[in-house]
């Protein structure tokens, strides 16, 4: 049977797509069973220009699908693409009434009966795991038979909807063949079409999750069981993807990847033994299943980043979600992860239907504290009500249209808006398209929650220390201060959402202006300097260098003027910034510090920022290294303050030694007029 395996269309400029592994798996099985699968990736078609994004998108997509001359069209649908799948099914059935149409994926699995009842275009829904079910369904249809005995299928017999028994989950995932990537366009095609720096492949390490978070349909779909692929198989798949298909990065798709320490350790060992640890990978992790040692092993094996689901800073909300987070463990893990050079994505959710404003603020404050621990990628999302979840069961009658969450974006095919026919579909069936709806939150109106979700991650990334201290200094909750800042930045930069450049350009002025409104009681005097600290750290980042500064020929040190490289900044402070930063790292936001001067060097090297405290002599030496003054001149200028009592020649020797030390730390380089070659 000729089967078109269709990955439905969606497009959002800020996201990319990858070969659809689920459909590749199905195609692999169908091919082995002697059928003719054709993968039709409509997302890639959009990205590569084969499918124009306009009002005629569905018509054009139907032509692409029918060009494969299918006898069966099978869609892999997610909540976001469910309306698109319905539109395509309608047009396909109208064009070729004899065509069989099936749909699988989360939404369809949980809404099988409802889908078939409402949309007669579909002949069957494949529920849950499809690798065994789809070949059996295709075999039945190819033989002209009804799929009456195919477990895991809901199908139509005339006007009756028949729900076959559930299919048992595959007992042995390793019995599945390796995905046949010959079915899909090359990884490089995705890289090019999406403008990615690397060709990325998805790697399945396992399936399932035992936890019961109220918003998650993943654990429900996999019946709260976990199964893994053998480590040797996963590594073998990596090798094949790397050597034959040019994979340059892997996404490990398994929620519980770090749940079994021995599994992760074996994976890291085998990846390294296979010489694949130079290929970066990304995984999903849990705070309570990693520690410093395991993180180090993962880093050495190529792990570049991972996602931790934090969800909330409010104990009340965590109880509602049915989740536990230990704040101390969270901070420690974030510190360890970032110290190893990995950037963790921290996922937070705001706006659950039971949340008061204090709950939301607890989450925002927790996100700030995490940002203080190290560079994190905070992801702040509004809850999405997914079919199959406890959230859906409890609240599906309270859905409202308000704002588009992540799960609602991607169908904007009409000049940035959804097509009228998609809007009509969504409006007519909230229970089928729940991800396009919201839940009212008592804590804040939806538009305000949406602006927080969009903009607050920026203050966590750019100004976590000073934003948090400003909240404390003004006695303002994070959501209140953010709304104030958001209004300020729009006043200054014009209407529009907060962006990174806007945040960088306007937060310092905003913070200083608000700080000036405080009574002069002596508290929070250090806050302005913490703000300066963060501004210096961000400003130096723009001069990140991939290469080392020009080397100083230490034999000819006295001859050349010296300068600080562009990626080095120095700044003096009235307060003891090292102590304040250390306190913040420990979760202490003290209102008052004695005035104890400190001098800092900010140095950006590639993707690493290092801030160091330096003594007064070193600071002056760096500050005066302007690229025009040779060592003798520097020594003469510094001698009064730093070399009193030392003979000129001895002090020049001190300066020479200091310059050597600073040069070894890449904090000084040959000044103007000295070429790098000459310097080397």
């Amino acid at each position, binding site marked *: 049977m000729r089967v078109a395996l269709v990955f439905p269309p969606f497009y959002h400029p800020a996201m990319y797509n990858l070969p659809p592994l689920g459909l590749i798996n199905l195609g692999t099985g169908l091919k082995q069973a002697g059928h003719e699968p054709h993968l039709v990736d409509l997302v890639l078609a959009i990205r590569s220009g084969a499918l124009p994004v306009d009002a005629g998108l569905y018509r054009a997509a139907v032509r692409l699908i029918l060009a494969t001359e299918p006898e069966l069209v099978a869609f892999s649908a997610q909540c976001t693409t469910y309306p698109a799948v319905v539109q395509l099914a309608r047009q396909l059935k109208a064009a070729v009434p004899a065509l069989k149409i099936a749909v699988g994926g989360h939404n369809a699995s949980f809404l099988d009966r409802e889908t078939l009842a409402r949309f007669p275009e579909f002949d069957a829904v494949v529920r849950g795991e499809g690798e065994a079910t789809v070949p059996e369904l295709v075999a039945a249809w190819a033989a002209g038979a009804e799929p009456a005995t195919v477990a895991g299928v809901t199908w139509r017999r005339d006007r009756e909807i028949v729900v076959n028994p559930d299919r048992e989950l595959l007992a042995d995932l390793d019995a599945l063949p390796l995905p046949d990537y010959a079915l899909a366009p090359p990884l490089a095609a995705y890289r090019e079409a999406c403008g990615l720096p690397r060709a990325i492949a998805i790697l399945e390490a396992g399936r399932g999750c035992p936890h019961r978070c109220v918003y998650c349909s993943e654990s429900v779909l996999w019946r709260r069981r976990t199964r893994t692929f053998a480590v040797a198989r996963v590594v073998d798949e990596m090798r094949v993807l790397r050597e034959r298909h040019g994979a340059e990065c892997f996404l490990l*798709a398994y929620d519980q990847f770090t749940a079994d320490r021995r599994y992760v350790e074996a994976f890291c060992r085998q990846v390294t033994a296979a010489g694949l640890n130079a290929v970066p990978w990304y995984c999903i992790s849990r705070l309570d299943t990693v520690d410093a040692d395991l993180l180090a092993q993962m880093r050495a094996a190529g792990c570049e980043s991972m996602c931790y689901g934090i969800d909330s800073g409010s104990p009340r909300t965590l109880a509602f979600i049915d989740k536990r987070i230990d704040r101390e463990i969270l901070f420690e893990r974030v510190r360890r992860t970032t110290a190893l050079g990995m950037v963790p994505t921290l996922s937070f959710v705001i706006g659950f239907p039971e949340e008061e404003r204090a709950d939301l603020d607890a989450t925002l404050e927790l996100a700030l504290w995490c940002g203080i621990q190290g560079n994190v990628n905070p992801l702040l999302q509004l809850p999405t009500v997914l079919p199959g979840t406890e959230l859906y069961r409890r609240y599906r009658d309270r859905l409202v249209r308000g704002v588009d969450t992540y799960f609602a974006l991607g169908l904007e095919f009409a000049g940035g808006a959804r097509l009228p026919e998609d809007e009509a579909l969504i409006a007519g069936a909230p229970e089928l398209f729940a991800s396009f709806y919201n839940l009212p939150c008592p804590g804040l109106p939806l538009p305000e929650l949406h602006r927080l979700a969009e903009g607050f991650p920026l203050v966590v990334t750019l100004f976590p220390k000073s934003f948090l201290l400003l909240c404390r200094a003004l006695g303002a909750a994070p959501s209140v201060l953010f709304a104030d800042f958001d209004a300020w930045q729009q006043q200054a930069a014009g209407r529009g959402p907060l962006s990174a450049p806007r945040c960088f350009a306007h937060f310092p002025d905003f913070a200083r202006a608000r700080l000036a409104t405080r009574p002069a009681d002596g508290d929070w005097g250090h806050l302005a300097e913490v703000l300066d600290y963060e501004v210096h750290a961000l400003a130096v980042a723009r001069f990140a260098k991939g290469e080392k500064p020009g080397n100083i020929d230490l034999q000819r040190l006295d001859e050349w003027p010296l300068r600080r490289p562009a990626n080095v900044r120095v700044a003096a402070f009235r307060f003891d910034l090292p102590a304040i930063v250390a306190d913040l790292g420990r979760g202490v936001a003290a209102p008052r510090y004695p005035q104890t001067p400190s001098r800092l060097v900010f140095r950006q090297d590639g993707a690493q920022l290092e801030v160091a405290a330096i003594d007064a002599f070193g600071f002056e030496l760096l500050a005066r290294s302007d690229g025009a003054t040779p060592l003798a001149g520097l020594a003469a200028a510094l001698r009064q303050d730093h070399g009193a009592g030392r003979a000129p020649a001895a002090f020049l020797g001190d300066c020479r030694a200091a310059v050597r030390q600073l040069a070894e730390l890449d904090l000084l380089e040959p000044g103007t007029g000295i070429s790098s070659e000459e310097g080397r």
Partner: protein
Amino acid sequence: MLKIATVEKRTTSAAACHAPACHAPSCHAPACHAPACHAPACHAPSCHAPACHGPA
């Protein structure tokens, strides 16, 4: 010897967003529609643009 001591080290590379629309059977992939990720091109785990959240 000059006295110099580390105060803080931070990785400033743009972070990977939570698994993009990868559609593996096990990937619950909400994300990288993510408005939360503002840095240009940083939706990829692969993005190394240093400090692309910065002012540059």
